[in-house]
Each structure stands twice: as structure tokens, then as C-alpha cells.
């Protein structure tokens, strides 16, 4: 399985993602400079975290106009796997591939810490290696992770099972206290209706190597491997 990672000026989780896909999973991984206009032959695309264009204007707002984005949108519309992590999630909402928006954290401050999440759906191509409603632990690191969507579209997300991850407390329930940034309904990650585009604020690539204290994130990448193999076989 071939991974591609988009590199914008200011991307800074690009190498962390590559370490997971290439070194830990052994899959060939290509960096794709934002000024390219076509994608190489790849099976999954990662839009990594960071501060593309310094987050100037608004997180993701400038990256969305980078030359490569037309090819990314095209790839997604044709059913290619697209994973947006943190700033990548912000860019995908700005580009219209995912609904909603990421606002400033309720505390107005950057927050970096491990958070408890619940896998709301293990029926997506990104989450099939998880148990149903599994409680997992992933780090967050963002200043603008407060997911917002209007009531009407929120209902659509809920009905279509597009909410993939929620922040939860020790008992596994989404509560006010376990919501680190003020996100609507404790939403930490969503996918598009077709299920091939996932955006999430937590960083699965930071929880993939046992030496870093948690490995709940590796299953997300392994899910993609499984899904891709099934897809190829089909």
C-alpha cells in the first residue's frame, strides 16, 4: 500500500506520519510538495498536522488554495482514502471535503495532552481494527480544535454515522468535563458521507510506537491497510 503525505510550508507532523507508515508499517511513503498539481500513484493520502502558512488568516484557510488541493479533492471524490489530522482536518473542512469548522479552543489556549476517546463507529475503512465503542487514548495538540457545526448538519452527521471519534471520560461517556476544547457533542473526528475521508483533531501518529507510552493510534493506520487489501481483493 502506498501512502502520500502532503507537505505545505509550515506542515510539521509530516515526518511523524511518515515514520508510522514507512518505518513502523513498512509501506512506501511519498512526500508531496504543495506546489505540485498532480498526485503520484498512491492508495491513501495524509494531510498532516502543523501550521500550514503559519495558520495566518485562519487555520487551513490559505493551504486550501495551494496548487495541490485540486488533485486532493479529485482523489477524494474518486473514493481515495484521505486522512486529515489536526491542521489536516482544518484544511479538509476549509476545502469543503468535510462539513463543519474548527474554532478556537474554549480555553483560548493551545492544549497538548493525552485524551480519552470513544470509537463511535468501527464500520469505517479507518477504524475497522478497533472494537465497537472501544475506549482509546490519543494525544491532542491544538489551539483551534473546537469543532462546530449547525444543528441541522449535526443531525445529518449523527444519522449517517459520520461521527467517528468523541472525547469521553473515565466511564467512557462524552461529558462536559472530558471535552477539552468545547467541540459540539464532544466530536473529535468525523468522516464524509462516503466514508473515505476522515478528519480528526487527535494525533494517531503520536500513539503508534510503544516507546511513546501508547499504541492506540496504530490501529487506525492498520485499519487502512486492512481496508485497502479487501478493496484490492474485491
Amino acid at each position, binding site marked *: 500500500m502506498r501512502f502520500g503525505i502532503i507537505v505545505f510550508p509550515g506542515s510539521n507532523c509530516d515526518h511523524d506520519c511518515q515514520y508510522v507508515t514507512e518505518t513502523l508499517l513498512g509501506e512506501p511513503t511519498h512526500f508531496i510538495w504543495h506546489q505540485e498539481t498532480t498526485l503520484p500513484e498512491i492508495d491513501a493520502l495524509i494531510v498532516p498536522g502543523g501550521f500550514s502558512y503559519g495558520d495566518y488568516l485562519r487555520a487551513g484557510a490559505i493551504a486550501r488554495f495551494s496548487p495541490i488541493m485540486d488533485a486532493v479533492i479529485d482523489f477524494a471524490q474518486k473514493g481515495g482514502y484521505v486522512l486529515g489530522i489536526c491542521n489536516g482536518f482544518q484544511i479538509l473542512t476549509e476545502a469543503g471535503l468535510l462539513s463543519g469548522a474548527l474554532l478556537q479552543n*474554549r480555553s483560548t489556549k493551545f492544549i497538548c495532552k493525552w485524551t480519552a476517546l470513544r470509537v463511535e463507529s468501527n464500520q469505517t475503512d479507518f477504524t475497522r481494527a478497533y472494537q465497537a465503542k472501544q475506549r482509546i487514548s490519543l494525544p491532542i495538540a491544538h489551539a483551534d480544535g473546537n469543532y462546530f457545526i449547525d444543528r441541522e448538519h449535526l443531525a445529518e452527521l449523527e444519522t449517517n454515522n459520520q461521527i467517528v471519534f468523541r472525547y469521553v471520560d473515565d466511564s467512557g461517556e462524552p461529558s462536559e468535563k472530558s471535552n477539552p476544547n468545547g467541540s459540539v457533542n464532544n466530536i473529535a473526528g468525523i468522516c464524509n458521507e462516503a466514508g473515505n475521508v476522515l478528519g480528526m483533531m487527535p494525533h494517531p501518529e503520536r500513539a503508534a510506537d510503544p516507546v511513546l507510552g501508547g499504541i492506540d493510534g496504530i490501529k487506525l493506520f492498520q485499519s487502512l491497510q486492512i481496508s485497502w487489501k479487501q478493496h484490492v481483493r474485491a
Partner: protein
Amino acid sequence: MSEPEQEAIPYHTLTGEEYEKTKTLLGRSPNATELAIFSAMWSEHCSYKSSRPYLKRFPTEGEHVIHGPGENAGVVDIGDGWVAVFKIESHNHPSYIEPFQGAATGVGGILRDVFTMGARPVALLNSLRFGPLEIPKNRYLLEQVVAGIAGYGNCIGVPTVGGEIVFNETYSKNPLVNVFCLGIAKKEEIVTATASGVGNPVIYVGSKTGRDGVHGATMASAELDESTQDRHTVQVGDPFTEKRLVEACLELIHSGCLVGIQDMGAAGLTSSATEMADRGNCGIEIDLAKVPLREEKITYEEIMISESQERMLLVAEKGREAEVAAIFNKWDLDVAQIGWVTDDKYFRVKDGDQVVAEIPVNALTAEAPVYDRPVKEPAFQDMLLGLNIDGISTPKSFSKTLLTILGSPNFSSKAWVYQQYDHMIQTNTVIPPGSGVAMIRLKGTEKALAMTTDGNSVYSLLNPYFGGAIAVAEASRNLACVGAKPIGLTNCLNFGNPERPETMWAFGLTVEGIRDACTNFEIPVVSGNVSLYNETLGLGIYPTPVIGMVGLVDLMDLIKNPLTPGFKRPGEKIVLIGDTREELGGSAYLKIIHSQERGYPPNLDFKKEIGVQALVREAAHAGLLSSAHDCSEGGLAVTLAECCLLSEKHVGAKVEIAPPSFRMDGYLFGESQSRIIVTVKESHLSALKNRIEKQGLPYSILGDTGGSGLEISVQNKTHPIIHLSIDEMHASQSKGISHYFTDSTDKE
């Protein structure tokens, strides 16, 4: 660009004597631009004119040292072709005037010092000092400094993995912001800030030059007063540009067309050009008409001493200018050839054909003034040392005392701060912030680097020699607790006005203390920084040496399962290595509970310290230890409480002590040095005891881990003298800082 006005000499800060010296060196009177250049290069900040004679006393050489002080950062060989590059630097004055930008650009500057050596920055630490949080201005300073560090470090993608924050009244008008950066590189990738090769192009890259930071170096070389609002002397940071600059510079270094490179830091273009020429024993000629500018009507002097951020000066190989340009163009950064290397050893500045300044390079460097400042012990020193311990009442409840100390800002959880820093990016952080040492693994190797910053200014106030020596000992001890072997240190010496003999008295003794500790522990000083004039309205800070130390861990077991301070599981033996004396002088207990900063600070016996550290390091390597924690500030009771609070599984402890032959508060809260608390499985206890006894070191078995709280009792007494649940201690310790800030949604 306008002609300099004849009558006004705005950037001239030389003394009369210094002015005469410039005339002798030039054989004529300097013009306005030359005066600005001399003023910047001869400022305390750039020339170290008060401290240079002292700094020569540090041991700077070692088997593994590749570059010591004098380069942008120190470089130490860590084996298998890898080197560690690190330095600490102050950004104190700017952070008081404009805390967000002051701190942010401090981070930016130290990052550039490291990546200009060819190393990729992999970790940041910061050592911060503020006045008490009861004062709104101090809350504002803390909040803004932290936001500035976060804003810059998070954006550029270098994890902020540790450091320290200390509160004391002495910093109310002089906060300290010392930033440390560590980078790693392959040995052959290291480049230096040396100009060479006559005719080689001198190239300017990065941001355009503006008026920001004009006068920064000279501002940092003077006392501040109440009206100090020179915000234009503070630079403005742009981490997005710096991120592109890192990537472009590392790409350039790998391209092989680089000769030398230096950050335009303090005194900007002036210092970078002259220092590079000085190291290469050559000259440099630059043309100001070619410098990328962002402001109109900027004068020659302003261009020469602007401290606009995210700029670099480099010397490339002749004929490869286009390659350099292509790399910086790719990253959307300015690039302009502004001059070339000459062989006449002059620093020559032109505007087109017109010569604007012409100064021998060594007049700005080697010939810069050096002052042997007068030295005098402060009149109040004896009074400070006079602690009447019998006049200090023993608390009725030691439990309450412990809770009060844990809840004080100096001992409380720093989570409110470090959760604002991305401490996980680059996915190397093996020991995260919160325990006194941070550790990052090096991907693709079987190595990790541990880092810490330390310094206790109350000790330094009471006895500057021991303050300096103990800072080194404690840093090294913290590293021993994770099994790391120190490879080098960098120091930041923060002091008041050097023109006061009392300041230089303390400075000299501090240097001696650091030197003696380094010599005894065999740890070289590889880089550092001096920050003087930390005075406002004539009130100077306590002498504040800050030590940043790096240690190497080369055992995978200690990287995969790092040794940390928290208790691991119930039923283990708690062992104190070292011994406890009645040493309450300068202690946190005296300060927090009795409002006194007095007495002799604890003694330091180098031989014992070396023995304790070696023993713990070796026991860690042998896999005998479950946890290890330095026992120093706050004393035994606080250290035990921290081991409970840092326990992931909330493991408590039951400790029984023999009745001490001296005051109980001295036993519980005294700060005797050379002590480490470890835990071992019962099955490892005899092996550990054998090792300790073989080394002839003092030790005591304190008790067992287990339970949900900390219980300390005295043999043959029925009631424990301390009995607290972990929940109670946590409730107190978690709020010490965060409760001053209302915004926090996250007060765990």
C-alpha cells in the same frame, strides 16, 4: 535610505574612554555609522566585556567535545556518527518590555543558533523566573511569556519538553526567560560560523530588514527603569518564516555549497559579519544597497544594528550562488548577495561605491574593551547568613506544612504551563515534562538524550559559590536518576549591574562554583550566555545561574522503560541513598512557611555526590531500580510526596524513620545534597545494598510503597507525623498556579 544626520548620533552608547579608544584603533574619528557599529559590538551583550576574564576559567574541553564556546552552539560527539548540539540563552530584557514577543523571539534565536550549526532542533526547554502571582503584572508576564514560547515553538514543530518555573519577589521587575535548544546532526554535517575563501560571496537570506530590534543589544546592556517602554527595541517573531528558514538552511547545508553561516542575532548584520570574518581571520565587504529592506528611509546605522528576526548571513562557495538562490526561492525567502570575503581583515560597509564604514575586524572583536570590574562582598551578607534556628518554631502539623509547600507555586504542578506547549511533536518524547528531566529518543539509533535545567537563586544569594556548584550537581543528579551520563553543559548567568562591585563579587564566586563542580564531575562547559544589568530602579535580581545539562542514555531498556520518579507498584522497598543533616538554611520550607531567606545553604561534598550519582546510574543500568527521584528542594517529605503524585497508578507509601538527632522539620524539609530516593523490588534489595555498601555510601531503608496516601511515622510512636491521601495532596498541588488564571478549563 537617507544620509545620516551629522548632528544626531542616536545609536552611540560608548563611554568617553571607549570613544577615545575607537579613535586610536581607527587613527581618526569614527563617523556615525561606525559609532553605531562600535557601540553594538562593544556592548556588554556582544562583547562580554565584564565577564570575559571569568568565563575563561570554565573547563571547556573533553574527549567528546567537538566545538566548545565561541561557536553559535556547543557540539558534543555522542557516538555512531551522531552529535548533540545545544545552548541556552537569555531573553530577559525584551520579555519584560513585551513578554509575548520577547519570549517568542528568544525561542527563535536559540533555534537559529542550533540549526546554523547544521543540526535539526529536536527539543526546547525553558527556565523561567517571575515575581509572585498575587501581583497582576506578574500573572500577565507569565501568561504572555508562556503564550509567546508556545506560539513560536508549537508552530515551528520543535517540542518543548521541559524546564523550570520559579517564583520569587526578586523577579517582580526583572523576569528571566532563559531558553535552551538541543539539536542533533550527523558529525559530517556540522558547519561553523566561519567566513573563508577570498572572493566567496556573502549572502543574506530570510526576512527583510526593518527597524524592529534596533538598539536591542545595547538595551540589554543597561538597567531598566519604570518608564521603560522601548517596545521598538523588542523584535517581532514570525515562526512560519523561521520554519521555512530551518528547512531551507538544512537543505543548503546538505547541498555542500556552504562555507559558513551565522544567525543575525544581537546586533544583527554587524555582529554576524564581523564575527564570521573574525573566526576566519579575513575581511568582509558588504553593500547596503543590496540588503532586502522592508521600511523606507531607514538609516545606515539602523540597517547595521537592526535585530529583525529570521535572518541569516552566509558565505557560499563562489560559482554556486544560483544553487543557494534556488533553495531559498523554493521556500519563498529573500536571498541576496550583499558582499564578499576579502583578505584585508577589514569590515567594510558600502552604499554602492561610497564607503560608509571601514573598521579593522579585530577592533570590533579582540580589541573590544575588557573590564576588570571592582569586587566587594555585600555589607548585608553576614546578616543573611545569620539564621537563628532556635527562633523558628516547629509546625504543629507536618501534614499541613507539607500541603502548604505542595500548593505553593514553586512546588505545584506545572501542567497549566506545559500543556500549552506541544511537547510530543517529532514523536521522540520518552519522558514528557513534569518530572524534572526530559528524555527524547533518537530514531534509528539505540540512544536517547536526557535534559534538564537547574538553578536555585536563594542558595546563590546566600552563598554564590555553592549556588553555582549545587546547580551543576543537581542537574547532573537529575540525569543520573534516569540513568543518563552527562556529556556537557551550557549555562546562562543572570546577574544585576556589573558596575556594582557586589554583583561582580557574586559573579566571580558563581563561576568558581560552577568551574569546581564541572572539574570534579568531568563535565565540560560547551556553550553559554551571560545576562547582566537585570536591574530595575537600582534593584538587582538575586544571582541566578541556570545550568542546562544534557546526558546520554545508550541502553534500550532505559529508553523503552524509562526510569521516572513516580512509584511503580505497591510492595516495593523505598531506599534513601545519601544522608540527611539539619540543613534548613536557604530551604523552601524556611521561605514558604517562615518567610525567611537566610542561613548557610546546604553543603556539597563533591566526592560523595559523584559516588551517589554513579551508584544510581549503574544500578539503573543493571535493571535494579523501579523509580528514582532527586531529593533536594523541599526535602525528604516533599520528595516522597512527589513520588506518590507522579505515580501513574497512584501508589502511596508507608515510611518509618528512626528518631533524628536534630529538629524534625530539619529532617523532613532540610535540603541536604547528594540524596536520591529509589524504589526496588524486594528481590533486588540485597543486590542494591551490596552495591551501596561496597561504595561506602550512607543509606537508609525508609519503608514500603503501597496504600493510597503518604504516611510517615517515627519508630515507637503510635501516631504518624504525616498522614495524607494522594487525593488531598493532588488537590493542593494541582492548583498552585492554575487557580490564578480563570480561563483554564483544564485544572487537573
